[in-house]
């Protein structure tokens, strides 16, 4: 643009300058507040992560010592052990609990699509689905604890009675097993197919040339996998179901079930919550003329969703994804503090809970800042990755 003629350039630069000035004007109120109340505390906390600070005394500079204490390893009895014995377990817990994010997003979108229909009484349904978000946290907690109770909990009672009825005679038992095996099998196949589609989609978005090759490889792997799986797992499903029904798990009381139980709880609460509302607002933003145009082209509902709705709401999907990643790493304080106490065997303690305890119950603010900034680094990398990928996948009008 530099080699354009003089006059338009002048005009354009003055227009540019006007635009820049306008942008600064629009930014000013938010930016000044942001500078004073957000960025300064954030920078101070970065400084604190290099100090030893117990809140009462003035901070003392210790360089990278906190970081090596947190992330480092040392030898003990000829074994490599982490300097901080708690941190890695809590990282694992936090990441595990984030499995629910994509499922929750899909669920929210599905509910939002339903809520977007022109049905009588839809406002009523929307309000009801939003209720868990406004309900007293204590009420939610008590109910979920009751649901998950091993003996008297509603979930286990249902598992026992339904299972007991189905397996009362060999014929119905066999039928149930077969049906469940088919169901799980289809789910598995669906998951694999979904992953395949996702890979293909990303490949095509990124414009990768080896699309054909990967397609074939995946198809072969998938086909042979199916054959092996069907044979191997019919019996496994049967015995698993039988033991599951006779002694349903103690959801919050066992290490392997506590996290899935918390994930399900989060999913339920999030179905009609913030993400659904965001999707709903995004769906409202899709101009109806686009659908009309697609209809004229002869698109069915499925095609309409993928060609119009999905691209149009992709900025919101991107927003929800980024916020979920940021929020996911900083979550778990409430449930650990009031519901599980972080147990059993520390399996529901998250980094955020550890951070809180380190800062305010062990008075080790310097170390807590270090945890916070390590966390920051992880979230930043993930967000950057999402950002780069999102830049290609997300379509802005």
């Amino acid at each position, binding site marked *: 643009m530099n080699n354009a003629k003089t006059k338009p350039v002048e005009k354009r630069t003055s227009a540019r300058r006007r635009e820049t000035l306008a942008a600064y004007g629009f930014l000013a109120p938010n930016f000044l507040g942001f500078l004073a109340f957000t960025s300064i505390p954030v920078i101070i906390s970065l400084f604190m992560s290099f100090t*030893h600070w*117990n*809140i*009462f*005394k003035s901070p003392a500079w*210790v360089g990278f*010592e906190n970081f090596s*204490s947190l992330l480092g390893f040392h030898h*003990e009895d000829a074994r490599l*052990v982490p*300097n901080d*014995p*708690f941190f890695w377990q809590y990282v694992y817990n936090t990441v595990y609990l984030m499995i629910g994010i994509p499922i929750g997003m899909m669920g929210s979108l599905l509910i939002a699509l339903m809520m977007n229909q022109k049905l009588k009484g839809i406002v009523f349904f929307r309000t009801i689905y939003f209720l868990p978000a406004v309900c007293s946290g*204590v009420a939610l*907690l*008590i109910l979920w*604890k*009751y649901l*998950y*109770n*091993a*003996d008297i*909990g509603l979930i286990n009672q249902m598992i*026992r009675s339904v299972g*007991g009825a189905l397996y009362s005679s060999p014929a119905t038992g066999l039928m149930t097993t077969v049906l469940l095996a088919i169901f799980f099998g289809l789910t598995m196949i669906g998951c694999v197919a979904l992953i395949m589609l996702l890979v293909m989609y990303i490949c095509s978005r990124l414009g990768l040339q080896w699309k054909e090759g990967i397609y074939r490889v995946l198809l072969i792997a998938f086909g042979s996998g199916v054959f092996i799986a069907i044979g191997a797992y019919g019996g496994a499903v049967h015995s698993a179901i039988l033991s599951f029904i006779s002694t349903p798990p*103690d959801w*919050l*009381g*066992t*290490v392997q079930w506590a996290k899935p139980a918390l994930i399900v709880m989060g999913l339920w609460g999030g179905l009609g919550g913030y993400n659904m509302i965001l999707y709903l607002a995004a769906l409202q933003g899709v101009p109806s003329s686009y659908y009309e145009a697609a209809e004229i082209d002869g698109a069915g509902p499925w095609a309409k969703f993928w060609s119009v709705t999905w691209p149009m709401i992709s900025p919101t999907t991107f927003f929800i994804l980024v916020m979920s990643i940021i929020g996911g790493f900083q979550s778990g304080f409430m449930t650990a*503090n*009031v*519901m*599980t*106490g*972080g*147990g*059993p*065997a*520390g399996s529901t*303690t998250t980094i955020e809970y550890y951070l*809180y*305890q380190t*800062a*305010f*119950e*062990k*008075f*080790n603010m*310097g*170390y807590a800042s270090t945890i916070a900034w390590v966390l920051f680094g992880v979230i930043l990398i993930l967000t950057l990755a999402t950002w780069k990928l999102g830049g290609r996948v997300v379509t802005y009008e």
Partner: protein
Amino acid sequence: MDNTGLTRIFTTIGVIFGVTATVALGIFLTSTTSPTPKGKASIRWCVDPNPIRKEQIKLFESRHPDISVINDPGAEPQRLLTQLAGDVPPDVMALYDPQTIRLFAKNGVLLDLTPYVSKYNIAVDKLYPALEPYVYHEGRIVGIPENCGPFVVFYNKKLFREAGVPYPKPGWTWEECLDCARKLTKYKYENSRRIPSQKGLFINNTDWWLLIWMHNGRLFSEDGKRCLMDSPQVKKGIRFWADLRLKHKVMPTASEAQSMAPTGAWGSDALLFRASMVAMTLSGRWMSIQYREQKDLDWDVVSAPHGPNRVTLLASKAYAIPKASPNRAEALTFIGHLLQRDNQLLVSNYGDGIPANSDSTITKAFAYNPDYPNEKNNQLHLDEMKYARVQEFSPYINNLDVSAIMAVELDKMWLQQQSPDAACDVIAKRINAIIRRNLANPNFLD
């Protein structure tokens, strides 16, 4: 369209009304933010909320009309520390365990109360000797406990009668307790499943101190530099505890109990006891606040069972004054008042522990409370103070690390993933590793 025009008018009216209302509300609210009349000092009392605090404030203000007290709800550490760091401290704050008191005192946050004892009539000499860790730091008085509670056994008299078991007597042993608990554990059949309908005994997962001490074991060595969890005395106690649940099955499993509790790990014993699903629980007198609510519950207390060593756990909290408190004189007056007879009886009659002031005029009035038929036996709590001991701590490891390790490894024991002995060994190893780290790098300590 007419409709849009009308909507616009309504919207405009609504916006104008909303803005005016908000501005008016703002003016009203900001003009009425000052709660205290001029010339009257107001002190801020930071402690967990409790209905009795209102009565306590009323009593204090009637004695000292020139001072008003604000009860700050929630002594959340996040808030307390932020306000202390920001130099906006409360005037009187509650600290809940000896190690925190030590940390605050060591860092020079707490006012040394020693010079003020006589002037403000603070009855330190009347406090139970067992409360010493809550009161002193390096010989100086820094905290004043208002109430405390030795752990005792609450038992459901009705369930004892039904099972034909005689009521337990103070001074009983753990073996006698186990025997009772066996007889009080009952099962029922539901869809041909045998499930417990009633359990004999419940001890909170976090109250391991009693079991550690019952055979004269200790958690830390004298100098605090070594964890003695792997000593034979401790292992014997922990084994006994594990057997109660896993072998004799007289105690609800961790999850049976935990999923009953509405908030956190705490409180499940109270719910189980109130539901008559557990015949005996081990805790302090503050439980009577809840048990009183249940009018049809027939209960009494008996001393905590003992092994070769007769000892029980003592819990309390202490009030301290931050050095930076802007109303030092008033705060001292308040702290002095807390140990006075009327306030002591007010708190203990509400059910929140026993008076920390052991003066006979107070204990006599406390011992018998005709208002509550289940609480004729208050003398027992006072007697138990002879055997009560505050939880141990080492200056070289934070109690939070200790309880985190304990929780994880003991949970594995309850889930039968490791034996009690193995749990003790692992706990000792992990705690000692942290102590070693802290000794090598003192930055982790203070």
